[in-house]
């Protein structure tokens, strides 16, 4: 017994020494730079996040084919946090302290980002977050390559209020019941008030996650729209609830030209494999659409299609590109540029080098990382859904807009506007 125990002990110790040695050797003798990819590959968010993992791998391969960064190849480390928010933090810690990645590209939902934040702060890591979100956050260790509310929600509402968008006077704020829609609607409500829209002309409705019976809500919208003045619906419904919502909308005879619905979480990937005919004419606001025409976008789409074929993704012949994928692509390239500029992968040096980086993005604009606020300057597009699930761009900003992570429409943010 004694013998066996000591044998076990010895085995454990030697194994752990070997493991430590392994880590040490890979950290010091590295001729590669490790890059973490933190996206859910299973669970509810897999639908959206898997495409981002593929985009990241594709971009890393593209950079490696051109000789890598600082003369070293990038080595992707893919982990699966399985749509489980605490697991995001666990996996982030693993990436930072065990794999010693130089940077992480990851997260989709705001709750997953909030979950990994303390880890990145504690271990001074670097995270690139590629999805549009509600703002009200600015962390030294994070670069936000998705849109802040003033780069998506506010321009969309301004469009609806313009003559071109139908001069809407009444608004239905409809969302799934969690933090992103609630915060966004809080900002929008304040914005609408500042534009002189009366309290009685705003209706706010929430549904639980996965809600599938939108009859009552559509009836309410109809009634609300029937009380005079042009009405528009601003939808922050998230996930697959969108399908029954739009179906019901079509069946109830509410047409896009009468009551347009503008969505902030519906993109090409969400419409893929969905019958888009009842949705035709409804709107979405993003910083990139697959249908944008320019050489950079053609290249980006072709690259992803080839990648999908090579990686044997399911239904590779119908893959689409969307806004968060573009944001991932831009983020990785900008990081690579910043590393080249800093001549180091050290977090603080890269953060300093990120300020003012520019990149010619597939959206057709040269995007710039803001000098101070860690957000990209992005153009805004409004698209109308076409029958094939693509978007027809009906309006766009003249150029990229600077992000306001702290919305000026939320009281208490006045002092943070310089950021």
């Amino acid at each position, binding site marked *: 017994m004694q013998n066996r125990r000591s044998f076990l002990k010895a085995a454990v110790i030697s194994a752990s020494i070997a493991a430590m040695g392994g880590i040490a050797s890979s950290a010091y003798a590295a001729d590669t730079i490790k890059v973490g990819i933190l996206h859910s590959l*299973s669970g509810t968010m*897999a*639908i959206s996040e898997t495409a981002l993992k593929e985009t990241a791998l594709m971009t890393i391969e593209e950079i490696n084919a051109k000789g890598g960064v600082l003369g070293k190849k990038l080595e992707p480390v893919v982990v699966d946090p399985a749509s489980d928010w605490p697991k995001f933090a666990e996996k982030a810690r693993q990436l930072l302290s065990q794999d010693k990645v130089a940077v992480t590209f990851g997260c989709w939902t705001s709750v997953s980002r909030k979950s990994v934040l303390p880890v990145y702060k504690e271990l001074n890591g670097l995270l690139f977050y590629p999805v549009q979100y509600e703002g009200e956050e600015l962390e030294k260790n994070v670069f936000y390559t998705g849109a802040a509310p003033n780069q998506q929600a506010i321009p969309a509402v301004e469009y609806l209020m313009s*003559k*071109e*968008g*139908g001069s809407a006077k009444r608004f239905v704020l409809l969302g799934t*019941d969690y933090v992103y829609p609630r915060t966004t609607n809080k900002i929008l409500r304040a914005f609408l008030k500042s534009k002189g829209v009366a309290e009685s002309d705003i209706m706010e*409705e*929430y*549904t*639980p996650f*996965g*809600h*599938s*019976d939108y*009859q*009552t*809500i559509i*009836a*309410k919208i*109809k*009634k609300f*729209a*029937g*009380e*005079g*003045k042009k009405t528009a619906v601003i939808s922050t419904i998230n996930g*697959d609830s969108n*399908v*029954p919502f739009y*179906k*019901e909308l*079509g*069946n*109830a*005879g509410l047409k*896009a*030209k*009468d009551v*347009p619905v503008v969505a902030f979480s519906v993109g090409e990937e969400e419409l893929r*494999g*969905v*019958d888009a005919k*009842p949705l035709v*004419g409804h709107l979405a606001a993003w910083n990139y659409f697959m249908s944008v025409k320019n050489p950079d976008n053609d290249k980006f789409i072709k690259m992803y299609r080839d990648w999908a074929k090579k990686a044997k993704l*399911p*239904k590779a012949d119908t893959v689409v590109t969307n806004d968060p994928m573009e944001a991932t692509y831009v983020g990785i390239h900008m990081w690579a540029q910043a590393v080249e500029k800093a001549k180091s992968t050290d977090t603080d040096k890269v953060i300093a080098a990120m300020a003012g980086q520019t990149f010619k993005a597939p959206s057709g604009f040269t995007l710039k990382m803001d000098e101070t606020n860690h957000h990209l300057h992005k153009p805004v597009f409004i698209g*109308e859904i076409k029958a094939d699930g693509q978007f*027809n*761009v*009906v*309006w766009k900003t003249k150029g990229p807009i600077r992000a306001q992570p702290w919305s000026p429409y939320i009281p208490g943010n006045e002092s943070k506007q310089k950021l």
Partner: protein
Amino acid sequence: MKRLLLILSLALGLGAGAVRADVAPEVLKGLASEDFDAKQGAVAALASVGDADAARLLKALSDDAVAVAGDKLVIVAGEQVLDAANGKPLKPAASPDSISLNNSLRQQVDGALAALRLLSADKTERLAAAKALLADMGDGAALLPLFDKALKQEQDGEIKTILVQLQAQASLSSPDAAARLQAVQTLGQSASPAVKALLLPLIEKQGDTFAEPDEKVRLAAQTAIKAIDGRLVWSDTAGQIFTGISLGSILLLAALGLAITYGVMGVINMAHGELLMVGAYSAYAMQALFRSRFPDFVDYYVVAAVPVAFFVAAAVGMLMERTVIRHLYGRPLETLLATWGLSLVLIQAARLLFGAQNVEVANPAWMSGGVQLAENLSLPWNRLVIVAFSGFVLLVVWLLMNKTRLGMFVRAVTQNRPMAGCVGVPTARIDTLAFGIGSGIAGLGGVALSQIANVGPDMGQGYIVDSFMVVVLGGVGQLAGAVWAALGLGVVTKFLEGWAGAVIAKILVLVFIIIFIQKRPQGLFALKGRFVD
């Protein structure tokens, strides 16, 4: 102003004696422009010209068939490419790149097209135009002379009624108070929320003065709005009851299978939701089969999916019963765990077979859209069909359980198993068959769900709680109870939703059920006899 141009040309006799000329180049340039105002101006100009060329171009615009090819504007008509200016075929210099309209331009184009057709010789075209104008006109003050003219010529009663309303809508902003009063009184006959929306601004206050200067008109508008409101209340309530019944029918379809397996046989089947999922995927598979093999009959895939889903789900159910559940009869806790495990197996199987993403199941054409019963009450066809379908399934189940030998055996076995066995009923086989029927009915529910909800591997999880809720509320062992519970829950949920929102309604319904089950654990209907003791 643009509207005014339109009127002038229309009032001055439509196209009569107009010199035939191609569409002006500056109009074409405007259409091809990226600028919204330029496009809008061009559409208005087209409407004001109003000849055959302009009408063709407007029609093409509304069909999204106009494109830019090189420096020319063209209409793409199938294989052919036509010159937008005069409709002559041409060889495009470059590949056509279609120009886009947004919602407000499309509305303008549709309105202009309708106005052009209002004086058409064809009666059905006139009617369609009048109806389109009713929907798309907006502030139609500028069209008033057109309506006057059309009304004078019109013989058909139905079109006349619409024209009178259009005329009244257009005269609401007339400078003549008497004309406005007359218009308001005419509109008071309507039962349309759109008309109410037009009248509301009349009684609104802007600062200290009313928008409508004449007091008589204001009073008339108030009366008219009240009258319209009165008519709307009825259709609103009817609509709410219908949505409740519709939700009830869906709950019933989801729960009916469970009412047999759990209610009658006493098996706590946590994989019931996955049997719904199997049914829904059967519908998806039939759709794919019809699309590839019988594209002409693709609208009838749902009909074919009904028996297929029944048998596939029944087969899966019987397989479950034979391999796992029959070894666990009388041990509810183990059954619960085992069936939960089975549900995970089925979800993962669906993921492997069809992928983790939701699949697309489209409504066939005859189940899309709705039937308009009143101005503000349109019942969607897919929901009407599902209500009828649930009635049909209920009838079949009732006949099966009460009028067939198999049904009698099932009832006998559940009431007294040893006695049924003694008189020669093959109890084991009856168990399998009964479980198969319950599963098959869940499959039918799945087909119905595929028409209104998302079809994905874990869709069943969302219905399992609702299904148990219905069966427990209705009273275990009772089909009639399940029916009343489903309809009751549906209507109550919908009324609560209308009053307090979807999130609160869900909570309130659950609280209500907890209290109800505490007070009356046997459910709405208690089964009398040996079974319950």
